[in-house]
């Protein structure tokens, strides 16, 4: 995959995080009522729309963070072989974290 494709995804995930975290802030922290109440949390957890939003936040957040870490490591002037190993390691960690974290909202749903 070309670097520019990864960068485009980085921009898309940044925009996605901005809107989804904004939505989360509005609903859970700024809106009136009791958003952290057990019934409200249970209601959101069983909603398909909220499930999709949670999964997207997770996906966008993990991609954005992992790509950022990769960018930092790339600046260490590593040899090509080490860069390849680092790329695969980051991909593996990202998928593993996503797989583990996505289990919770899916189970709650």
């Amino acid at each position: 995959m070309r670097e520019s494709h990864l960068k485009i995804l980085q921009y898309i995930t940044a925009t996605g995080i901005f809107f989804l975290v904004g939505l989360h802030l509005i609903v859970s922290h700024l809106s009136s009522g009791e958003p952290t109440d057990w019934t409200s949390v249970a209601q959101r957890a069983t909603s398909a729309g909220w499930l999709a939003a949670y999964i997207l936040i997770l996906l966008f957040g993990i991609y954005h963070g992992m790509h950022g870490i990769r960018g930092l490591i790339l600046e260490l002037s590593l040899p090509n072989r080490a860069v390849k190993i680092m790329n695969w390691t980051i991909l593996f960690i990202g998928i593993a974290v996503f797989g583990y974290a996505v289990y919770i909202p899916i189970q709650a749903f």
Partner: protein
Amino acid sequence: MEKLTFKVQRYDPDKDKKPYTQVFTIPFKHGMTVLDGLIYIKENVDNTLSFRSSCRMGICGSCGMLINNLPMLACHTPIEELKKDTITVRSLPNFPIVRDLVADLSLLFEKHKSVKPYIIAPDMAEAEKPTAEFLQSQLQLEEFVQFAYCVKCGLCMAACPTVATDKHFLGPQPLAQACRYSADRRDGGAKQRFQQADTPHGIWLCHLAGACSEACPKGVDPALAIQLLKRAIISDDLRLLKKRVPPSVAQPQAEKKPKVAVPEFTIKRPGAKS
């Protein structure tokens, strides 16, 4: 200010393990540049001092060095502007030292070469056997002319914090030149340059610190060029880049008009042939 103290980096790879500083005290003259000071030292105090210089007017880009911790051209830096009577001069950072103040710029030239800094003609037949000159409007020229002022002095590479941390990073000078040639309407090699810039150690490592643009003595603004190149690469990926109209060739010149006959003199000079 009557006397100046020059703290100059000295290094001879045959004798010294690492660079050291030598202090020289020289008389100050009004209008003196740092290069004038170094020439004075070489001519009157220590003729073993090595530094590069040529044009003495900021055109050739030979005398790039670290002056009071900022990369500058020595010939382009009046001592009065530094507002100090102690001047520290070192070779450009981010480059190996050849001797004293002479930096080895071969890495810069290698990277510069890698981005194909020349016009790659889209129509080879026309390029090899041109029928007329290519037309370029003022607006088309302004798209890249600022980046064409680069003198390859290496100051931007010396100022760049990313070049300092990642020796494989292409750097501001080659990236600015990739932008300059890709923006030229006569060029058809933008995709080749995009591939060269779009690598793990390419354009995306630029953090837009802007140190390159501050250091550039010719006002090239490599940081702007890098941002424009990023936009061009992304637009090319998303198929948003407008298809280039091939450069138009000038119309063949109209046939020359016959010369207007010169009128005869009204006053005939005596002895002149009629």
